[in-house]
């Protein structure tokens, strides 16, 4: 497959995003509040709250660490992502293309697509835990890595098939349905937690809440087989759960429609409703339940409405994710029709979903997802804020018509290798790597660009 063919295909796919957003297309803050409130009350919230309890997060770690982590996430959106988005008004794809060149963006797209597939896979598995309830399927436990029963595999295949078919048919109607489901899902989280209070012995008036929370819910002691979390884990995980979106700059595509840069603060709605209250609620529900799987946990809390909520939460997150994965994968198969590519993405997603490790190790996967994509955000940051000060050319690939910006490519590759060594050999946990990686991306890209641009300019001037 020729690179030029791939580039043409990629450009065609994002054709309508090529130009900066015009003034008449700008949107008010209400839209951004809606987007963030809707996107961050999702199926993952059921799992993350449960996993915090399993990892022995203490009550103060969760309440204080979660507050600080979410604040840092909101500040990242408001002060780093949205100012660049409002100034340039380009999608992430076109911004990266101008900086890195089409060949490097192609590689980034494929990596992103695979990450989308695994994320959708986790959501398929979450939905399957609820769908399997009436069939008495043996649900995966916290320590499970491989599929634990035929029933589980069949349930995942059925759920995966339905979600893939809907994604093939187009997901616009489902996206609208997801917006309707969002406020209801949030209330189900709260209601399920409140309904679990009597089981946990929490008195009306919340007089003994902190005592019960300390003794029964967030005990500060990790369950067998789970690593021990501290407040630092909570802060860094909460901050970087959406690292790909803020510091990784994926949400340039959203905030390019914002009238003002401070619309980035709208992300606070999603963070504090979804990544604070919903995570706390999910921990309460889990402490009162007798299962490790989101479906049975929600069912035990509020019956059928809880199980339906888990199905919808997983489904509404998995579908757009799978659709986006299909879009991103399409560039690698120029002669394939959209439905075939989405089917391929669905197969990858469903196969991944069969492995309970994807859900039970969701915290690690989310951290890994951010870690892999975050260097590109650092590269955009350096290009936008620092290049002029160092008398370097922004949008280097576009201006010099190069396919692969080696300074950006080397930065990304080097940081992935360094992160791998830091995690596997030195033993630094995944949650703590994205921030150093982002800072190093800024510094390395700047350094490599000085060498690259000066070297090339020298060659051009002497040649």
């Amino acid at each position, binding site marked *: 497959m020729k690179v030029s063919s791939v580039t043409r295909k990629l450009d065609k796919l994002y054709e309508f995003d090529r130009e900066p957003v015009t003034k008449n297309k700008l949107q008010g803050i209400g839209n951004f509040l809606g987007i963030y409130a809707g996107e961050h009350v999702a199926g993952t919230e059921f799992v993350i709250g449960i996993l915090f309890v399993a990892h022995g997060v203490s009550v103060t770690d969760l309440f204080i660490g979660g507050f600080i982590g979410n604040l840092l996430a909101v500040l990242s959106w408001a002060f780093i992502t949205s100012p660049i988005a409002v100034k340039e008004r380009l999608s992430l794809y076109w911004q990266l293309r101008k900086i890195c060149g089409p060949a490097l963006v192609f590689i980034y797209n494929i990596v992103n697509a695979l990450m989308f597939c695994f994320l959708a896979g986790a959501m398929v598995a979450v939905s399957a835990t609820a769908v399997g309830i009436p069939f008495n399927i043996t649900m995966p436990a916290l320590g499970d890595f491989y599929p634990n029963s035929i029933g589980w595999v069949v349930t995942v295949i059925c759920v995966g098939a339905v979600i893939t078919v809907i994604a093939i048919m187009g997901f616009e109607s489902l996206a609208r349905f997801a917006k*309707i*489901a969002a406020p209801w899902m949030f209330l*189900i989280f709260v209601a399920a937690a409140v*309904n679990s209070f*009597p089981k946990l012995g929490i008195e009306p008036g919340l007089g003994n809440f902190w005592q019960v929370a300390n003794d029964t819910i967030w005990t500060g002691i990790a369950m067998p087989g789970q690593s021990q979390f501290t407040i630092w884990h909570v802060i860094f995980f909460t901050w970087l759960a959406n690292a790909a979106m803020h510091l990784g700059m994926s949400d340039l595509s959203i905030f390019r429609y914002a009238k003002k840069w401070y619309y980035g603060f709208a992300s606070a709605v999603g963070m504090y409703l979804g990544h604070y209250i919903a995570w706390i609620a999910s921990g309460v529900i889990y402490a009162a339940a007798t299962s490790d799987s989101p479906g049975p946990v929600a069912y035990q809390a509020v*019956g059928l*409405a809880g199980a339906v909520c888990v199905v919808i939460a997983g489904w509404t997150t998995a579908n757009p994710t799978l659709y986006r994965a299909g879009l991103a994968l399409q560039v690698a198969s120029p002669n394939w029709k959209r439905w075939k590519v989405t089917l391929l993405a669905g197969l990858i997603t469903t196969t991944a979903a069969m492995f309970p490790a994807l859900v039970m190790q969701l915290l690690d996967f989310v951290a890994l997802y951010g870690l892999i994509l975050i260097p590109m955000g650092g590269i955009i940051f350096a290009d936008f804020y620092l290049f002029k000060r160092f008398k370097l050319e922004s949008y280097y690939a576009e201006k010099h018509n190069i396919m692969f910006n080696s300074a950006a490519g080397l930065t990304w590759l080097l940081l992935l290798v360094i992160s791998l060594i830091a995690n596997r050999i030195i033993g630094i946990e995944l949650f703590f790597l994205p921030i150093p990686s982002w800072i190093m991306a800024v510094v390395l890209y700047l350094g490599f660009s000085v060498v690259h641009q000066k070297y090339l300019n020298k060659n051009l001037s002497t040649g």
Partner: protein
Amino acid sequence: MGSQPIKPRLRITFIIIAAAGLILTLMPSFLNWQGVIGPEKVNNLMVAGTILWFGSAIFIFVKKDPD
């Protein structure tokens, strides 16, 4: 879904039903916590709230994209 704009009076009716659905989704768990109703009733009321919410909100919020 929602291909025609709904009349204002019907829209208000749907908004009231939707709000009732959300209240029915949330309130029973608080009543259970206070010991006013039992867990079984909570589950049933929440299912009713869910049906009311989706049955009405779909007409309020879902608009057909312009062709």
